[in-house]
């Protein structure tokens, strides 16, 4: 990629971006308007296309996702869970503790982790339940149907049914510290990224363990392709993809895409329909790659900080990214 000329990047002709001056923690797209929303380390949420600023938190935004029907759900180090649409409102205040992770589902579920607790709220903001864990929750994921929520922590992950009358988790055990977590799209597998620079997975039907290792750095991004055939991951000097078909990933080697520049892949996210993955790197490069062919399309050039946030919109025709130096960008990939 290093020899690619500036004008070859799609960002030059199809992109829009702003220097916003604070670490970009996360980006997602509004379920109603389709606008990109960026959560930043200065507590602000910027919503496209004009990158309109809202002060959602006093300190830093620690997590952001698209909220249930519209706008964005954020957790902050001011202890607040907030919704930002046309304006910012506080949904819950957890006092002195950080709201480290948030997730939301169109079925009307909001999840926020605060220390060892995972708080579930409904679409109106009413608290539903508070789920306790043996140690601090380090990642949360809601399955595709919005029925189950998984929380990672020390020595495994806990799997909860959102609508259960009695709250008793299924404990997925594996020694060590688990952080990033993902469900496969069909809800049959849960995968976590571990402190020890490896992944651990569980096949829920029979509890079969899956160990995926060999990373030179910690994996922060886990993303399954639309039909769940591949799991794309950050944490190596290429996009590492594990096959979840043909008996894999057990006993299978992962595929690697877009490597060779000796730069760490810091973010990955799979296209919502096709077997295509977008990847961001430590030097600021953003690209998209077709998994079957390995063909790579350069999206944004290096130079504006390491990629810390990356997301496709629901149609898969818009990509948004943010960097640790505060650059926020969107790229329109629609057919012209």
């Amino acid at each position: 990629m290093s020899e690619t000329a500036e004008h070859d990047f799609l960002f030059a002709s199809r992109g829009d971006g702003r220097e916003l001056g604070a670490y970009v923690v996360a980006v997602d797209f509004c379920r109603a308007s389709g606008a990109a929303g960026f959560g930043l380390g200065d507590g602000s949420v910027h919503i496209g296309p004009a990158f309109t600023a809202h002060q959602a938190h006093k300190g830093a935004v620690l997590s952001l996702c698209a909220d249930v029907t519209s706008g964005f759900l954020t957790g902050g180090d001011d202890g607040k869970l907030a919704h930002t649409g046309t304006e910012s409102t506080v949904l819950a205040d957890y006092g002195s503790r950080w709201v480290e992770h948030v997730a939301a589902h169109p079925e009307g579920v909001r999840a926020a982790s605060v220390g060892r607790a995972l708080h579930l709220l409904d679409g109106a903001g009413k608290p539903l339940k508070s789920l306790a864990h043996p140690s601090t929750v380090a990642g949360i994921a809601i399955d595709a149907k919005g029925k189950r929520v998984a929380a990672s922590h020390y020595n495994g992950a806990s799997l909860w049914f959102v609508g259960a009358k009695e709250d008793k988790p299924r404990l997925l055990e594996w020694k060590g510290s688990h952080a990033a977590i993902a469900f496969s799209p069909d809800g049959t597998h849960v995968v976590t990224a571990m402190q020890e620079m490896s992944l651990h997975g569980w096949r829920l039907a029979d509890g079969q363990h899956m160990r995926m290792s060999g990373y030179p750095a910690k994996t922060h991004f886990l993303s399954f392709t639309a039909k769940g055939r591949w799991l794309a991951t950050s944490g190596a000097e290429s996009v590492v993809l594990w096959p979840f078909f043909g008996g894999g990933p057990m006993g299978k080697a992962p595929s690697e895409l877009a490597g060779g520049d000796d730069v760490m892949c810091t973010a990955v996210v799979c296209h919502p329909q096709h077997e295509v993955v977008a990847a961001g790197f430590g030097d600021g490069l953003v690209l998209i790659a077709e998994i079957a062919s390995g063909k790579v399309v350069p999206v944004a050039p290096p130079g504006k900080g390491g990629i810390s946030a990356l997301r496709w919109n629901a149609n898969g025709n818009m990509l948004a990214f943010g960097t640790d130096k505060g650059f926020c960008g969107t790229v329109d990939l629609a057919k012209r």
Partner: protein
Amino acid sequence: MTDQVPVTVLTGYLGAGKTTLLNRILTENHGKKYAVVINEFGELGVDNDLVVDADEEVFEMNNGCICCTVRGDLIRIVAGLMKRREKFDGIIVETTGLADPAPVAQTFFADEDVKRAAKLDSIVTVVDAKNLAARLADSREAEEQIAFADLILLNKMDLVNAEEAAEVERRIRAINPWAEIIRSTKSDAPVTSVIGRDSFNLEKILEREPDFLSGEDNHSHDTEVLSVSFKVENPIDPERFNAWITQLLAAKGQDLLRTKGILAYANDDRRFAFQAVHMLADGDYIRKWRDDEPRHSRIVFIGRDLNRPQLRRGFEACQVGAPSSNYEAELARWSPPS
């Protein structure tokens, strides 16, 4: 790596004066901005958005090393603090009174993300001058907190007379002769003399050669933890040293609380600083040797059950020109049986 945020770890027994010191750090106008990680929010009567409430969550790294424990909450907190727009002059991590300082210190060696963002600046232990003897008698933690310290705030000096003060300093020195001691009453030492001292900086520690160490035996019989130090005059062979110290730390790391060294490598005009907390080690070149200073290498071990002759012979065998048979024997001493 110059933009790494310096971290001060604050340890000390309950009631020694940590909270008083933290309150001063947060309220006094000292011109610095510190993020403070505490473990019980209620105890500080300060409303400050730079105070982070943490659980001391220790876990064992799955790397086959049983003493390699780290604080998972700190890994997350450092990552979170780095997202803030405002920059800090430092991060202060308070530990509970009974806590072993090792997992906190090891976090700054073991996690790559944390290492990139922050560096351990010093371990500061607040000690109650009046009650230290009693604490040492009834707890292993009190002794470890002193052994780990780079700087000791000897507090509540208004409660002891000159004789008692000298005795408590002697007790501290017997455990850790290299720590700097600052005397205070109501934790009233200037904040900048305690925090942000760069006292993990080995150079300073090792240059502060305790004069009473000239004698061979500084083994104190009233404590379990002891320290030994060695100096050699011939250049060190880096390959030999690395192999030896790796084996030694792997075999003996549980007993070795702190290891620090300044090394003169052969054919290199820079000083190499080495340090370890239990089995986790780190090292870097710090600066060029000055023309007027002898290129000697020194190493210090603070720990339990240390065999002085074995450690000395091992370090000596790492010198260029030491007989390779000696070296092989020293390496084999710490190697697992094959």
